[in-house]
């Protein structure tokens, strides 16, 4: 009989990615609500040594597959291994990080297992012994609650990065580790040819805690240096509106909006962004919004917690200096 919650973790470059701890923490919450156990599946190169630490976040037991070929995610290697493990474990609920790789893995697993999957969930709960999740549609212009059909197991959901609260890790708690007996498929039809790290290891927008974003009002690519500087001091990352990306000022990976990234930082500072509906859909779930725009009628001010009606070229240098002063004293 199906039992318990199982989380799929993500291990890269010798460490679990933060999203793994987020799904583990959320998994613990659901397992407690069900009164059942929490297992984890951990694939990767060198993952075995790190696996017990998942216990810090509430995992009871980890099934590991440690192999050099699992260094990077490749569906042909990951999917059959995880699908077999899940069939043996037969969990009631499966949680996956809604990261780039997690999205591929979860959809393939759902198709292979004939399971129902809700992606990019922002809220999960157990009601009457069943999973119920809330997720955004139309990039956050609306939300929907999903439930699974009676008997449809496992109930699979992926968790949007940066949204679930991480438990405070308890270093005294270690998870039991079991090496899963699996054999990896041989030659694959697809390969990773190259992996090129972004310069300075820029934090991805979907996982950033602070975003300094610029729009049409930035007037040119060269002016983004101001935003880079501010973001650096704040430990954040730079984003952009579609207008700025279409103008060629910023790379597409910086685009925030319905046809770009949907972001949920603690702090979003919108500079020279008027607030088109498709942009606001992408950043409207930020916990805190600051808008800097010289047009007091700009729609962005209707969403901003703090509004600054100023020419950004006058305001930002002074503001950056004030932030620098603050950071040097604390």
């Amino acid at each position, binding site marked *: 009989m199906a039992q318990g919650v199982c989380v799929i973790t993500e291990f890269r470059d010798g460490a679990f990615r933060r999203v793994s701890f987020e799904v583990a923490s959320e998994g613990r919450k659901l397992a407690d609500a069900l009164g059942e156990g929490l297992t984890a599946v951990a694939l990767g190169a060198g993952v075995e040594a790190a696996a017990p630490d998942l216990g810090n976040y509430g995992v009871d037991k980890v099934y590991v597959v440690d192999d050099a070929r699992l260094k990077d995610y490749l569906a042909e290697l990951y999917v059959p291994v995880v699908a077999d493990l899940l069939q043996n474990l037969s969990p009631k609920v499966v949680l996956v990080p809604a990261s780039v790789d997690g*999205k591929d893995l979860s*959809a393939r697993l759902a198709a292979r297992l004939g399971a129902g999957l809700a*992606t990019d969930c922002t809220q999960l709960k157990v009601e009457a012994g069943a999973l119920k999740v809330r997720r955004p549609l139309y990039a956050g212009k609306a939300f929907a609650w999903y439930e699974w059909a009676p008997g449809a197991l496992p109930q699979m959901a992926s968790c949007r990065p940066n949204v679930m609260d991480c438990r405070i890790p308890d270093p005294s708690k270690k998870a039991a580790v079991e090496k899963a007996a699996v054999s990896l498929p041989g030659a694959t039809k697809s390969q990773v040819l190259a992996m*090129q790290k972004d310069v300075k290891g820029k934090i*991805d927008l979907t996982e950033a805690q602070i975003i300094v974003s610029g729009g049409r009002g930035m007037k040119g690519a060269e002016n983004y240096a101001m935003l880079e500087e501010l973001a650096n001091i704040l430990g954040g990352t730079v984003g952009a509106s579609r207008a700025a990306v279409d103008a060629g000022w910023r790379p597409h990976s910086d685009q925030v909006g319905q046809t770009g990234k949907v972001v949920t930082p603690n702090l979003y500072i919108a500079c020279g962004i008027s607030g088109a509906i498709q942009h606001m859909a992408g950043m409207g779930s930020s916990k805190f919004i600051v808008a800097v725009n010289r047009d007091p009628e700009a729609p962005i001010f209707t969403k901003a917690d703090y509004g600054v009606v100023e020419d950004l070229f006058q305001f930002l240098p*002074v503001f950056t200096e004030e932030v620098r002063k603050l950071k040097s004293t604390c």
Partner: protein
Amino acid sequence: MNVVVLLKQVPDTETVIRIEADGKSIVTKEIKWIINPYDEYAVEAALRLKEKKGATVIILSVGPQRAVEAIRTALAMGADRGMLVDDPAAEGSDALGKARVLAAALSATAFDLILCGHRAVDDDENQVGIMVAELLGVPHLALAVALEMEDGKVKIDRPVEGAKVTLQAALPAMVTFGGSHAVWNPRYASLPGIMKAKKKPLDVRKLADVGLAAEQVGAGAAKVKVTAMEMPPQRKAGRVLQGDAAAKAKELVRLLHDEAKLI
């Protein structure tokens, strides 16, 4: 070479979303429908392959009759023929149900490459294309921002968190598209293109025509379903800071540090 582009018709991204009286769908009256932007990038990439290497570009969609308009737009951009699976029995399908319909239609079509957006900007599910790849047993390369064909293999670039990856796969394969309008810059349909599109073949099929039993899809087969929709919490306009630029800068730092405790 046959390139099949999976295409979904979605509400324009400028649409103001309102919830229908049933509480679990949106008001569709007066919506302007467009090709899902990420699928449009896939159409553009397919047409570039056609120009460079020679290919037949086939547009495939599952949906209601109105989706014909989106397929015609893709034909006007330069695609060769279209197919729509329009069957009331497919209504209410979850992602897996939709993927089953598309996979069944693809099984009856010779294909080398399947292209589509990584997600549709309505449900934002990020599932259907990947599930089609799984059901057909073909490799999938996600979030392409560049695509090349070389020695019978497809090669893409894709960004992941903090890095760029280059991947390749043997054909047949599925590629799902990321990037932005600025990356793919999809062409507009020309007037002669629109005239020609009217004469291009566009088949409308039922589930039985693609060899699928009605029980395998639709609301009855859905493993997961929407039970309620709600609007996001309304954000209220907050405080507008006063004074000159220097005073506002000082005040903002104080507020973010002391009140919001964010910096």
